[in-house]
């Protein structure tokens, strides 16, 4: 132990024998570490905030359905004959953070044209409390909870079938009793999704009207869509299916994963570039002390002792750098928690359109604890790799004479 303490003291003093050089190495590593931690927190928080913004608009965190409602192979396909009621849900806590929906593909006819759309029966008050759907109505109004046979349409859909606020449209579909469902509904509002495809394919009405239209009992629904964004996990509900948004919208999940992975790749590249610079500096530092290493060897220090001293020196440098870097990264992240970043700064003020919806998130950075050990590990790994060549050179050349 005493010998080890001497070794550490020796390495620490050597680390500071050229203080300016050490400070530059230390700062480059620390700033790199801090930036990577901040960047990963940014990417993670950014993804989460964008997703939260996207999911709260309409899609929800997960869907509770009859176990055969979604096609197991392709969650884009669903079977409208598979319904369930709240009585089948054992964990009633879900009811507080979710809303009921009835969904069916229908034809909507205006004066001149008929188009196929997805009609969703919703609970207007619950939607207003849980989702951003009412905010997407930019003409007319949102559905009246007490109203009957009201419909809101995507802006593009209304334009294509040539209807406006106050017009009536004919809705035709497949009722669950085998009959042809048909009704007349009044257009009360138009939805603006930033011109995305959803504007042409979605229509909403009150859930009671939709249930009557589809010949469903009032307690039967297709989905209970949950908006509990605090917990990313899906609950287990016996007898029912719980489907996470990433399964329903895999293309969105993949893009979020891409952002995360890409940030890690950028982090690797940053550390690699810093490491290459450090390798060169370490090589110069080691070579400058070559004669000293030879002296150490002559007076009895084994090559392994010299190698250990150098490794400890680099380890101390790395440890100091990651401590300072983690501190810097944390301070920067915390600042961006209290002063959220508007993502439109990166889009020239243009709104972000995701999955056919307009996203306007302010990204509040949340520190992810895992980054505070993963990034230092990455730094240690590259730093360790960085010193291999200089170390081999030192070991090879230390076997010398007076």
């Amino acid at each position: 132990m005493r010998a080890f303490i001497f070794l550490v003291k020796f390495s620490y003093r050597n680390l500071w024998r050229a203080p300016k050089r050490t400070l530059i190495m230390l700062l480059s590593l620390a700033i790199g570490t801090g930036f990577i931690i901040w960047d990963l927190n940014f990417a993670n928080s950014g993804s989460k905030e964008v997703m939260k913004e996207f999911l709260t608009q309409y899609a929800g965190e997960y869907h509770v359905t009859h176990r055969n409602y979604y096609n197991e192979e392709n969650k884009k396909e669903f079977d409208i004959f598979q319904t369930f009621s709240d009585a089948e849900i054992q964990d009633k806590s879900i009811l507080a953070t979710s809303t009921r929906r009835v969904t069916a593909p229908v034809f909507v006819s205006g004066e001149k044209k008929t188009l196929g759309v997805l009609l969703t029966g919703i609970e207007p008050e619950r939607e207003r409390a849980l989702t951003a759907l009412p905010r997407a109505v930019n003409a007319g109004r949102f559905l009246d909870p007490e109203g009957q046979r009201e419909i809101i349409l995507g802006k593009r859909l209304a334009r294509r079938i040539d209807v406006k606020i106050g017009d009536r449209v004919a809705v035709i579909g497949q009722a669950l009793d085998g009959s042809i469902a048909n009704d007349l509904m009044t257009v009360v509002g138009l939805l603006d999704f930033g011109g995305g495809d959803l504007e042409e394919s979605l229509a909403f009405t009150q859930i009671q009207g939709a249930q009557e239209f589809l010949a469903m009992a009032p307690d039967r629904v297709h989905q209970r869509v949950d908006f509990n964004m605090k917990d990313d996990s899906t609950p287990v509900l016996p007898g029912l299916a719980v489907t996470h948004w990433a399964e329903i919208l895999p293309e969105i999940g993949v893009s979020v994963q891409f952002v995360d992975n890409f940030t890690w790749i950028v982090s690797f590249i940053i550390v690699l570039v810093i490491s290459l610079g450090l390798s060169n500096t370490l090589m110069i530092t080691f070579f400058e002390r070559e004669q000293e290493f030879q002296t150490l060897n002559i007076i009895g220090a084994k090559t392994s002792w010299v190698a250990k001293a150098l490794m400890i020196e680099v380890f101390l440098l790395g440890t100091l750098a990651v401590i300072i870097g983690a501190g810097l990264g944390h301070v920067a992240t915390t600042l961006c928690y209290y002063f959220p970043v508007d993502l439109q700064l990166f889009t020239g003020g243009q709104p972000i359109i995701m999955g056919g919806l307009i996203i306007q998130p302010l990204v509040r950075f949340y520190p992810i604890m895992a980054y505070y050990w993963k990034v230092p590990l990455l730094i240690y790994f590259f730093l360790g790799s960085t010193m291999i060549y200089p170390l081999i050179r030192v070991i090879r050349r230390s076997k010398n004479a007076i």
Partner: protein
Amino acid sequence: MQFELVNVEKVYQASEETKVYGARNVNLKIAESDFMALVGPSGSGKTTILNLIAGLILPTLGTLRHGTSDITALSLEERTKHRLDYMGFIFQDYQLLPILTAAENVEFPLQLKGFSQGEIKDRVTWALAQVGLETMGHRFPKQLSGGQQQRVSIARAIAGKPQLILADEPTANLDSKTAQEIIELFKKLNQDYKLTFVFSTHDQRLIDQVKTVHYVKDGQISETRTHHA
């Protein structure tokens, strides 16, 4: 235990045809408390012989012995350990570690040997006192004069009380007065503690003080003279 070079030859192969003899047919016995100098002009081979004695380089032919041990049969790391256990070194340019204080420089080989903290403290104090630097242990090498640095180097070499101290041109970088003081110090250590010294030198003042002088020419010991006190 005595150190011995038996029929030692060291050849440096400059090219396929060109061979350079660093040492040739060297036979040398170093007994306990010897005070000996290898003398010769630059390039004569005296430093090569010093390196051979230390086991820093291996002979092309011949044997290096320490007592009954064959040094040439030891591995590189074993030879390093052998040097640590039995030898001390003094260099022309002192070769102190700049990041360690004088006392820590003296302590360095003792730490490598694994001595206890108490023993290290006693030996460092003793060694620094022998070289007259007992009050300067806390100073770093750059805070010491050349003569003082060489004294620290001597303290480092003697602290482990080795069986053999090898000194390469120990007075070459010192002014006349300091060189004389250092030579007196070597003599005192040899007389008081029976420490064995082998010098590589061409300093006449040192040559005049040693007991045995081996003249080295073209890698060979061409002449040996013994001074009687």
